[in-house]
C-alpha cells in the first residue's frame, strides 16, 4: 500500500517543441500528464481523458460509454448531484465532457488560479461515483432525447449510421457512439458501474492542463490529487475485434421523406495514424485536399462544379485520428436534373483521372503552405492544442508522434500520395450510400 502514497519518481520530459511549450510526466500509478503553456491570458483548461470509448463497450450495451459520461455529473461520495458543475460555474468557469469511439474526456475552462479545485473534484469522481437507480432512469431519458435530437430527427444522420454500420463488418466503429436506440433503452445502473469500475483509473487516463500554468506546479498538484489513486490491476489489454479482409463492395440506398436534397457518400477503409508510422496518414491528408478540399481548386470541385454543372457540392475527407482503422470519404450533391448514377459516374471518372495524371507541383506547394500555416493558427487556440494531445494519446500515439506530425506532413511527396491512393481506392472495402426522399429518386 505504501507504494500508492510514495513520492513520485516523475519522469520529466520537456520537448523542445517547434512552437507550443509542452512538458510531459508519467506518474507512478501510470497516469500521463501533459502541460501546455500559454501565458497570454490567465485561463486554464483542465482535461482528463480516459482511454476508453464506445468502441470498447461490451456487446449489447452500445451507448454505455456515453451514458456513463452523463452519469459522472451526478453525485460522488462528497459531491451532491449537480454540485460538480455548480461549483465550476460558481467559480466563473464552464465544464463539459465528450465521448468518441476511442476516448471519453472531461474538461473545465476556468481562471488559472482555480486549477487545484478542479483537480480535487475531477480526481474525486475517478473512483467515488455514487449513482442511484433514479439518476439512471432520468438520465436514460435524456440520452434518448439526445439521440432523437442528433439522429432520429435528422435523416442524414440516420443515413450515415447505416453506411457506417456497413463499412465496419466486425469492428465496433460500426456501432454509433450514442448507441443503438433499443440497446440504450435497456442500459441500467450495473452496465454503467461495470464500465466505470473497469476503465476509470489513473493507469487508463491522461491529464492535460493547458494555459497560464507552470509545469512544476501542475505536477505538484497532479501528485497530490491523482497520484494517490491506485492503479487498476485488472485493466484489460485494449484489443478490439478487427476487420476481416473485406471482399465485396456494399451499396445502400437510404430513403426518408424528410430528405430535401439527394446526395451520395462513398467511404473506404483507410490506414490511420500509428505510432512511429504516420506517413501514409500524412499522404492521405494531401489526397483529401487534392481531390475534394476546396471546391475551387480540388479535382472534384473543378470537374463537377466548374467544368461541368454536375454537382452543387463536392467533398473528400480523411479521418485518420483513430486507434484502429480510419476512413476516407467522398460526398457529392448532384445539381438539379443530374441523377445520382450520373453524379457517381462523374465522381469515379475524376478519381480515375487523378490516378493517371501527374500531380500539379503548384497544388502541392499550396497545400504544404496551408498545413504549415495551420500550425501557426493552431497556437491561437490552446483548447484545440489540448484536444490534439489528449486525443492522440488515447489513440496510442506518443507526444513525439504528435510533435513529428507537422514535419511528416511537410515531407509528403507525389509518389507517397499515389501509392496510398492505389491502396485505399479498393471498392471491395468501401460502402457507397445514396440518400433520397423516395425510391424514384434513387436512379
Amino acid at each position: 500500500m505504501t507504494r500508492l502514497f510514495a513520492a513520485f519518481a516523475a519522469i520529466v520530459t520537456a520537448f523542445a517543441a517547434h512552437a507550443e511549450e509542452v512538458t510531459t510526466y508519467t506518474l507512478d500509478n501510470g497516469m500521463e500528464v501533459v502541460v501546455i503553456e500559454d501565458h497570454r491570458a490567465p485561463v486554464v483548461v483542465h482535461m482528463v481523458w480516459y482511454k476508453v470509448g464506445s468502441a470498447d463497450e461490451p456487446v449489447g450495451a452500445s451507448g454505455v460509454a456515453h451514458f456513463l459520461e452523463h452519469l459522472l455529473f451526478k453525485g460522488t461520495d462528497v459531491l451532491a448531484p449537480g454540485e460538480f458543475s455548480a461549483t465550476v460555474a460558481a467559480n466563473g468557469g464552464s465544464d463539459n465532457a465528450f465521448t468518441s469511439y476511442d476516448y471519453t474526456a472531461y474538461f473545465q475552462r476556468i481562471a488559472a488560479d482555480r486549477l487545484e479545485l478542479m483537480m480535487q473534484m475531477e480526481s474525486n469522481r475517478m473512483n467515488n461515483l455514487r449513482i442511484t437507480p433514479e439518476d439512471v432512469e432520468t438520465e436514460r431519458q435524456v440520452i434518448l432525447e439526445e439521440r432523437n435530437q442528433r439522429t432520429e430527427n435528422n435523416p442524414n444522420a440516420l443515413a450515415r449510421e447505416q453506411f457506417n454500420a456497413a463499412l465496419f463488418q466486425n469492428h465496433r466503429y460500426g456501432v454509433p457512439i450514442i448507441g443503438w436506440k433499443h440497446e440504450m433503452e435497456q442500459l441500467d445502473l450495473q452496465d454503467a458501474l461495470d464500465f466505470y469500475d473497469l476503465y476509470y483509473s489513473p493507469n487508463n487516463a491522461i491529464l492535460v492542463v493547458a494555459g497560464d500554468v507552470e509545469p512544476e506546479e501542475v505536477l505538484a498538484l497532479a501528485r497530490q490529487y491523482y497520484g494517490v489513486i491506485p492503479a487498476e490491476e485488472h485493466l484489460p489489454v485494449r484489443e478490439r475485434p478487427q476487420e476481416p479482409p473485406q471482399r465485396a463492395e456494399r451499396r445502400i440506398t437510404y430513403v426518408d421523406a424528410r430528405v430535401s436534397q439527394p446526395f451520395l457518400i462513398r467511404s473506404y477503409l483507410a490506414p490511420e495514424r500509428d505510432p512511429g508510422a504516420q506517413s501514409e496518414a500524412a499522404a492521405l491528408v494531401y489526397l483529401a485536399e487534392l481531390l475534394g478540399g476546396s471546391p475551387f481548386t480540388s479535382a472534384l470541385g473543378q470537374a463537377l462544379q466548374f467544368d461541368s454543372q454536375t454537382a452543387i457540392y463536392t467533398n473528400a475527407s480523411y479521418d485518420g485520428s483513430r486507434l484502429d482503422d480510419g476512413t476516407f470519404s467522398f460526398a457529392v450533391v448532384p445539381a438539379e436534373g443530374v441523377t445520382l448514377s450520373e453524379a457517381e459516374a462523374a465522381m469515379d471518372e475524376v478519381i480515375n483521372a487523378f490516378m493517371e495524371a501527374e500531380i500539379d507541383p503548384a497544388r502541392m506547394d499550396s497545400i504544404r503552405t496551408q498545413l504549415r500555416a495551420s500550425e501557426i493558427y493552431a497556437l491561437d487556440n490552446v483548447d484545440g492544442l489540448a484536444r490534439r494531445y489528449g486525443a492522440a494519446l488515447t489513440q496510442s500515439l506518443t507526444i513525439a508522434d504528435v510533435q513529428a506530425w507537422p514535419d511528416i506532413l511537410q515531407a509528403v511527396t507525389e509518389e507517397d500520395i499515389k501509392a496510398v491512393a492505389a491502396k485505399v481506392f479498393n471498392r471491395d472495402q468501401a460502402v457507397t450510400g445514396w440518400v433520397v426522399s423516395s425510391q424514384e429518386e434513387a436512379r
Partner: protein
Amino acid sequence: MLRILITVCFALVTTTAQAEIDIKQVTSPGGINAWVVEEPAIPFIALEIRFRGSSSLDLPGKRGATNLMAALLEEGSGDMNAQEFQTALEALAASFSFRALDDTLSISARFLTENKAEALALLRQALIEPRFDQDALDRVRPQVLSGIASDAKDPNSIASAAFDAAAFGDHPYGSAIDGTVESVSALTQQDMFDAHRNALTRDRLFVSVVGDTTADAVGAILDDLLGDLPAEGPVLPDDVAFGLEGGVTVIEYDTPQAVALFGQAGLKRDDEDFFAAFVMNHVLGAGGFESRLMTEVREKRGLTYGIGTYLVPKFHAEMLLGSVASSNATIAEAIEVIRGEWARMANEGLSAEELEVAKTYLTGEYPLRFDGNAEIAKIMVGMQMVGLPPEYVVDRNDFVNAVTLEDVNRVAAELLQPEALHFVVVGKPEGLESTQ
C-alpha cells in the same frame, strides 16, 4: 495624418482572473475608425469588419440579394475569376469569410504576418472590385436554393420561419435572409451590384484588428482597404413591434421529436434594466446546467437533451426567445413546465443566493472570453456596433455586480409575461393543439 485617439490600457479584473488588454483606437487620414489590440506573440493577424444593414437592406422583391451577394464576394474580383482568386488566397494560407446576417454583414479575415500585404490586397479586391460573373451567379444560386429546400424540411428552420413571420410580418425580420425560391431565382447580376452598393458603405462600417501588427500600421492600411467604398447607404428599415401574442402554433411534421421555439417581447440593449434582465435570464434559462429550465425540464424530468433562453436585442426589435426539443409524447409536458417556470420567475423572482451565484459566474466567465485573436477582434467589433466604448470591457462586470435583488425581481415581474409567451411547435405533438 494618422490620429491615435485614445489608448485604453487596463486589466480585466475579477475575483479570480485578470486579463490585460490594451485597446487602441485609430482613425485613418480618410476618417475610418478601427480598434486595435497589438498581440505579437503569434505571427498572424485577425481582422473583423462589419457593416450594419445587410439583409435588412434587400430591395422590394429582391429578398435574398444581400445573402447571395455576400456569398459571391469570394467568387471572383478584379482581374481574377473565382478559381484564380481562391488559388491566390490558398497560396497565402489566408482565409476570408463573408457572411450576411439579418442586420449585419460580417467579414472575417485571418492571414500570416509574412504575407499580410498580399492578403490585404486580395481582401481589398474582393470588397471593392467584385465581379459577380454570370457563371459564378449560376453556380452559387443553386447552392442557396438547395439550402432553402433543406430549410423547408428541417423542423427547426420550419419553426423559425413560422415564428418570425408571425412576429414581424412584412418587416425584413419576418422572412428568412436567404429569400424564397421565387425571389432568388429571379436575381440578376445587376441585383448583385445594387446589393453590394447598398450594403458595403463607410457610414455603417466597423473594424477591429488583433494580432501581430501595430495601431499605426492598421491606421495606414484602412483607407486603401476600405476607402473606395461609397460614403453612405440607403435608409435602414423602421423599428418594429414584436407582434406575436401568447399561444401555441402547431405545425404538423412527421418526425419523432417535436421542436419548439418560444418567445415574447424583450428589451433594448441600452435599456437601463438590461443587466437586471440579463442576470434574470441567466438564472431562468441561459445558464446551461445551472439554469432553472435545465434543472426542471432536463435534470428532474428527463424531457429534453437541451433547453435554453436568450435575450435577443436586435437593432429594430427586442425579444426573449427560447428553444427546446422533446419527443412527440412529452413535448406538451415540457411546455407546461416552461410556462410554470416563466410564471414562477415572474411572481417570485430570484433568491438572494441565486443572484449571488449568477453574478459570480457571469463576472468570472467574462474575462475567459478574451482568449484568442479572432475572439477578441469579434468582441471589439460587436461592442462598436452597439455603441459601447472600449472602457466597457472594464466596467462591464461592475454593471453586473450593480444589479440588486430588488432590481432583478422588479424586472422579472415586468418583463416575463407567461400569458404572452408563444410556442411554435413542429412535429406530431401529443395533447397539444394550436390556440385561437
